[in-house]
């Protein structure tokens, strides 16, 4: 991101030049007749000069007087008035009432000030509009900084500058040392090279502490697929069967889930209940009786990050105390996971033709709104009828984005390689040592906002296979940087009630999220690919 911003310097420079062009075009021309001059006082009266705001009298000796009130005296030989008198160098020499002899007047000058009116109104209107747009964006970013500032360590397999090209997010739920966790993600990348490079970036206002990092490389034929499940077990398959039908509340969503692409199915939260569930129904035809797995590519909406940051902001200036308690008090640590438990996992059911009931077969969960998670859920006991299989997916409304759904016959691979990095190169930040991340121990690689590291992995020779399917496993935790504006939202009572799953508080959170949901989602996701690139 930092590099990207740096690269935009040239672009911005061009804009500044455009500004200069605007400057050259911004001249406002007026005609000379806004100023009138008169040789005598009589001339000026005939031209209704008394209607002007002010009256400038140039004297023969080079002095000049600016009068706000003026009239001719009874003997008509002097102009009486109130104002200021200046010498030939325009130093003020008199302020107040004065009498100027007609014989000493060289020229009388009046000006139509309408001709040179300030243009500030238009400018203020323009800046007000721009300020309004900025304030909306400020509100979005303040309410949910992750919508603007990223998430956890992000992993890239190419030189992409876009957050939307991140192939994986590491340990998104691990917001404190006590919550350190291991996270495996499919990189959705195949390689036949001897070296593999993975870039880890810190694109958030967070400190990332990486304990361990390794790749899992599964050799395969080009025509094969490799997936992993929630228990990090790997499966191979040859062919993926698309659903014949995919509906939710009777609405067809098939086109959203047929391909791994930008099209995703997602719904909005219930305005009163953030835990309200919905069900997707899938029909598959031509299913064999062999072991099958449901392939899902998914990620979260911004709901969990909203809840996480609401919780932290409710801690206010006690945030440090609470995070210390998480480390030492297991009940608090347990309570912290309550909101996520309440929202629930994605539950998967298959229709059992024998007892004519939905049969639960798996549940999946992965925190993070940025990179998609491609995983498989094996269906232990298949119950098809004439090659037909029905699947039900139960999920919380407004919490998930489902990109892809498919069914595939699965088998376990014969070879699984775990590969630790051979080299680490600091692209941005402090030099890092490899030994800190090749074991699950007390040593951590600390990564700060803007830091980027390139990890090089040496892959073993491919024996009789064509390429490797690559997965990344990261272990660690991260510490959120507390923004000063969060401290203002301190509400310990609300925090306690939120963690106790209090219905009223959850109802108010539903309303709060509803207000910003559309805007937050639109701003974040409409910025994808074309815009950001």
């Amino acid at each position: 991101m930092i590099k990207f911003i740096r690269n935009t310097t040239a672009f911005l420079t061009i804009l500044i030049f455009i500004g200069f062009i605007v400057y050259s075009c911004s001249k406002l021309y007026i005609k000379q007749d806004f100023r009138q001059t008169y040789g005598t006082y009589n001339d000026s009266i005939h031209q209704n000069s008394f209607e002007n705001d002010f009256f400038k009298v140039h004297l023969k000796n080079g002095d000049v007087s600016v009068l706000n009130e003026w009239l001719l005296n009874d003997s008509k030989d002097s102009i009486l008035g109130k104002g200021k008198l200046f010498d030939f160098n325009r130093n003020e020499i008199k302020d107040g009432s004065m009498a100027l002899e007609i014989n000493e007047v060289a020229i009388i000058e009046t000006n139509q000030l309408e001709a040179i009116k300030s243009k500030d109104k238009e400018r203020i209107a323009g800046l007000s509009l721009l300020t309004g747009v900025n304030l909306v964006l400020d509100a979005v970013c303040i309410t949910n900084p992750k919508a603007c500032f990223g998430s956890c360590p992000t992993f890239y397999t190419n030189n992409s500058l876009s957050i939307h090209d991140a192939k994986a997010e590491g340990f998104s739920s691990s917001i404190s040392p006590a919550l350190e966790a291991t996270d495996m993600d499919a990189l959705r990348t195949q390689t036949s090279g001897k070296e593999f490079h993975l870039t880890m970036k810190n694109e958030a206002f967070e400190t990332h502490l990486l304990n361990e990092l390794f790749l899992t490389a599964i050799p395969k034929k080009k025509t094969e697929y490799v997936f992993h499940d929630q228990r990090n077990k790997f499966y191979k398959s040859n062919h993926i069967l698309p659903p014949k039908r995919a509906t939710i509340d009777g609405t067809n969503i098939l086109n959203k889930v047929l391909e791994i692409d930008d099209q995703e199915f997602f719904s909005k939260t219930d305005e009163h209940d953030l835990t309200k569930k919905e069900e997707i129904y899938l029909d598959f035809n031509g299913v064999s009786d062999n072991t099958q797995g449901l392939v899902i590519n998914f990620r979260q909406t911004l709901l969990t990050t909203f809840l996480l940051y609401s919780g932290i902001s409710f801690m206010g200036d006690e945030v440090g105390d609470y995070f210390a308690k998480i480390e030492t008090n297991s009940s608090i640590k347990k309570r912290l996971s309550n909101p996520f438990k309440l929202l629930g996992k994605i539950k998967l059911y298959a229709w059992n033709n024998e007892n004519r009931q939905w049969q639960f077969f798996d549940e999946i969960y992965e925190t993070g709104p940025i990179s998609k998670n491609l995983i498989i859920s094996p269906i232990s006991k298949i119950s098809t009828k004439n090659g037909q299989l029905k699947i039900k997916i139960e999920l919380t409304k407004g919490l998930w984005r489902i990109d892809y759904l498919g069914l595939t016959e699965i088998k376990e691979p014969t070879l699984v390689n775990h590969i630790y990095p051979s080299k680490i190169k600091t692209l941005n930040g402090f030099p890092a040592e490899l030994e800190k991340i090749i074991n699950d121990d007390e040593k951590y690689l600390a990564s700060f906002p803007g830091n980027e590291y390139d990890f090089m992995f040496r892959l073993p020779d491919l024996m009789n296979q064509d390429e490797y399917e690559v997965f990344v496993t990261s272990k660690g935790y991260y510490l959120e940087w507390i923004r000063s504006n969060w401290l203002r939202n301190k509400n310990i009572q609300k925090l306690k009630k939120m963690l106790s799953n209090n219905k009223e508080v959850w109802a108010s959170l539903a309303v709060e999220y509803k207000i910003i949901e559309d805007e937050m989602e639109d701003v974040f996701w409409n910025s994808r690919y074309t815009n950001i690139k």
Partner: protein
Amino acid sequence: MKNLLKIFVCVIFVWGCSTPKYLSAPKDFKNHVKGLYLEYTTKKSHSREIAEIIEVKDKYIKLLPVKNEKIISIKQNDIKYAHVLVSLTSDNQKKLNTWAGLLNINSLVHGYFMVFSLPINLVSTYSTSIHARGAYRMKIPDDVKWHELHKFARFPQGIPELIDENLIK
């Protein structure tokens, strides 16, 4: 990030330092008792100069350059290009510049969206700021003829004989 901050500082610096101080704001124009200013180039020198109009005669003009305090005389025929600068177009130039500058700095809190909000803010505020720094002008001879020019001089009647030109500041 450092580069970005440098751009910010430069932009804000450019905005802050380049105000033509010799020009009046519209609200202060009635108190402007000096001559108006001539922006000109001559056939001998292509550099653009700015000077206060002191006196205008049929064949020449006397000017007090803003860069030094010595009156110069230029023949009408030697002038290649000339504009009369009347006044600024803004009464609150500093406030508008500060507002515009703050809007640009505000982009920093937009995270990723800074790549959109910063250029939009920058172009819009820069344009606003530039306009605010702009001046009402008169082209010679399109908007003001040579024989009409004297009324914009400090001494529209001509420099009084009793005044030593060298003392004019």
